[in-house]
């Protein structure tokens, strides 16, 4: 009985070759890993999460401080509506969520320690997919 895989059974699988002696040298290199790793501490989950937790804490502190300052300077029920609107604009400037796509494409200086690999690793760790980047680019093109 013919199965759905017949087309592939006629094709076969093909194969790759490797340089002569490759697997012997690979085993030798891999065998050195314990020696090279001795003394190195594998990063714990907390060590990896710590920088992001610190960023989140700073952001939260800024939000709370902003809220306190604004609530202390606002006049309550006698507040000037124009000043209230201005306050909202000031607040919205702190949280630029109206153009989320821009957060992916803002100009950045290639500052010390911020490499393309750092950006890629950050995007992957925060779950940004290539499809979201493509959509963000499309959104940017249509709004420019």
């Amino acid at each position, binding site marked *: 009985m013919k199965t759905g895989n017949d087309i592939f059974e006629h094709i076969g699988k093909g194969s790759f*070759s490797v340089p002569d002696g490759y697997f012997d040298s690979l085993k030798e290199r891999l065998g050195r890993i314990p020696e090279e790793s001795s003394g190195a501490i*594998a990063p714990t989950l907390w060590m990896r999460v710590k920088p992001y937790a610190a960023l989140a804490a700073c952001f939260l502190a800024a939000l709370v401080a902003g809220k306190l300052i604004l609530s202390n300077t606002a006049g309550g029920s006698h507040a000037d509506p124009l000043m209230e609107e201005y306050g909202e604009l000031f607040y919205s400037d702190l949280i630029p969520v109206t153009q989320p796509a821009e957060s992916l494409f803002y100009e950045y200086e290639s500052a010390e320690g911020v490499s393309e690999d750092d950006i890629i690793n950050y995007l992957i760790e925060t779950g940004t997919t290539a499809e979201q980047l493509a959509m963000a680019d499309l959104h940017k093109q249509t709004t420019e």
Partner: protein
Amino acid sequence: MTDSEIIGLYREGQQERAFNAIVENYSERLYWHVRSFVCSHEDTDDLMQEIFIKVWNSLPSFRSESRLYTWLYRIATNETLNHLHKQKVRAALQFRSLTPEIENRIEEDPSFNGDELQKELMKGVARLPEKQRLVFTMKYFEDLTYEDMSEILGTSVGALKASYHIAVEKLKAYLEKKF
């Protein structure tokens, strides 16, 4: 050395000997597993180093709930997928498509020994969505059983069979257009 002997060695405190036994038994198999996804000897070679560093660092947390074989394959698969994700994100940031690059790499790979049809099959596989590509590669090129794949990927056998069937249909359509 069998897997249970390797684990026994590790538990007796002979970590390096156990690790070397894993390298001896599995390095070549895992190389071909990675190579079938990455389509580049150089990238595969780099990944092998990362995979076995991960294995060495993760050995203390290995529990015998899964078999050593499927645990190793899971690490290799996850590291390979991370590598492919990074390539995809890097390509998206640079506004280029990966598909033509991968097809070019397959076309120009001097170490590929297959014929034209087999090369087109590889290109078709590279175009599949990630899950279908994984399942098809592991089933067709590596002859893994659905039960083993289920343990490695954490997906039910039924879902794997469905993925494989869809991948086969897509590849048939792709190859029929080409030839």
